[in-house]
């Protein structure tokens, strides 16, 4: 079975229709825990993008030699390997950002989204499609995290990417990790609302 979608469609699909955070409701822990600034969202997004793309390609490349009965362990091993690699790279070259992510970089290994994409997509498609699907999913995750980070950084600290935008701190609440619950809930509802409005407009 090969996908009939073009590369661009695969990417857009990951960002919009099957956005890992807001539509598939997967990998919520970092979305709540560390989406406090745009930069945090971007950094973790990069890490996830890297792991997703590398794992997707690896699995797509070796899909014919992976024994079906040890499918899941192989996926886990693949993901764990790439997570270890990105973990070491970030720790070495971006120690400050790495310190902010804390344990969440290592926890990418347990992100349901990556395993799910390997099982549902990469194990059936060719490398090219898997690569673009990985890019789409990674970007979707990254953009979702950055959108959350945008709202929380602006409202919580009055800054964007560390630059002072508002000149004052509107509400400390939004930088508290627990505000992530409210932000994710409200943003999800917002996207649901947009979908309803969009469908209604289409029908009319």
């Amino acid at each position, binding site marked *: 079975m090969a996908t009939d979608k073009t590369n661009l469609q695969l990417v857009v699909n990951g960002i919009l229709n099957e956005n890992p955070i807001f539509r598939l409701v997967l990998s919520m822990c970092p979305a709540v825990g560390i989406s406090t600034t745009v930069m945090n969202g971007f950094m973790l997004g990069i890490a996830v993008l890297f792991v997703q793309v590398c794992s997707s390609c690896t699995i797509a490349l070796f899909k014919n030699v992976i024994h079906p009965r040890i499918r899941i362990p192989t996926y886990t091993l693949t993901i764990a390997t790439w997570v270890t690699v990105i973990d070491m790279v970030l720790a070495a070259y971006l120690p400050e950002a790495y310190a902010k992510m804390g344990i969440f970089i290592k926890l990418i290994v347990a992100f349901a989204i990556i395993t799910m994409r390997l099982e549902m997509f990469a194990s059936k498609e060719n490398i090219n499609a898997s690569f673009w699907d990985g890019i789409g999913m990674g970007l979707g995750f990254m953009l979702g995290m950055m959108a959350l980070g945008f709202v929380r950084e602006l409202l919580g600290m009055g800054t964007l990417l560390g630059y002072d935008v508002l000149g004052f701190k509107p*509400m*400390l*609440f939004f930088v*508290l990790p*627990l505000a992530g619950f*409210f932000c994710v809930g409200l943003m999800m509802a917002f996207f649901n609302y947009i979908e309803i409005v969009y469908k209604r407009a289409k029908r009319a």
Partner: protein
Amino acid sequence: MKSGESVEKIMWTVVACLVPPLVLSVFIFGIQTLIITAVSVASCVAVEAATQKALGRRITIGDGSAVITGMLIAFVIPPGVSPLLPILGAVMAIAIGKHLLGGIGYNIFNPALLARAFLLATFPVAMTSAWLPPLSDMAIFSYLGTPLDAIATATPLAVLKTQGLGAFTDQFGVGANLYTNFFLGWRPGSIGETSGLLIVLGGLYLLYRGYITWHIPVTVIGTIALLSWGFGGETLFSGDPLLAILSGGALLGAFFMANDYVTCPTNKTSQLIYGVGVGALTVLIRLKGGYPEGICYAILLMNPVSPVLDGFFKPKRFAPLQGGAK
């Protein structure tokens, strides 16, 4: 609700019971408290009307439930804060805490306390330091327009927690004098923390009318007294139970918040357990926790336990009662 009377009547009676402490606090802290309360009530009513309109529901601001929430928010925050705080609190309490969950009768947490927890997390400095010292000369307009830093003081429980018993007795006295002052309300604190006397009178009136039952207030106060006596002192059984009840928001919490119809259990046995839980958590947070006063969080933590308790003691599935949000 045990009595056959209408929701509106009960709600407005509760409001009436909350007015005497408010009036007294105007004499203690000045007109500032009245402004905060007015802003809080007005914004709660406005937010209720706005959310109900936005969600296409019937607008029910006349039933008094939003007014009660507004008053209670003002009762649990420091009187010296900026009026912006109760407005934000109203959004949290009414819109997010109540209407998103299905409106009146369906909220899981007590809206006013949710607002307090939210404000405490958002404005930790203002919420822990904007207390006003009691006025000695009845000049109720004194604090208007004075910058916060110049007047901020500390509540008795905060003094006890951070500076110890010595500083506490230095500031607030000892013995009968201390108890009288605390019972009448002559001390820094939120409106709901001032006059134990008026709060108890209001609570007793509600009991007399049968609008609330004795189970929760008695168990909450009893547990606080017992545990504070047991563990609050230097050695076992040397704490001061009377002081524990009179300081902080113990009385307001026991009479007006813990037994809110919607968020407390319906069954009598569960109510007793629930009351003990609230009391125990209050003492735990007061003695060992990071905050000077614990009853707010104790009630919030027990709120989600009430459906569990009801499930244990009442095998049949129950439908939430209509109305009765406070």
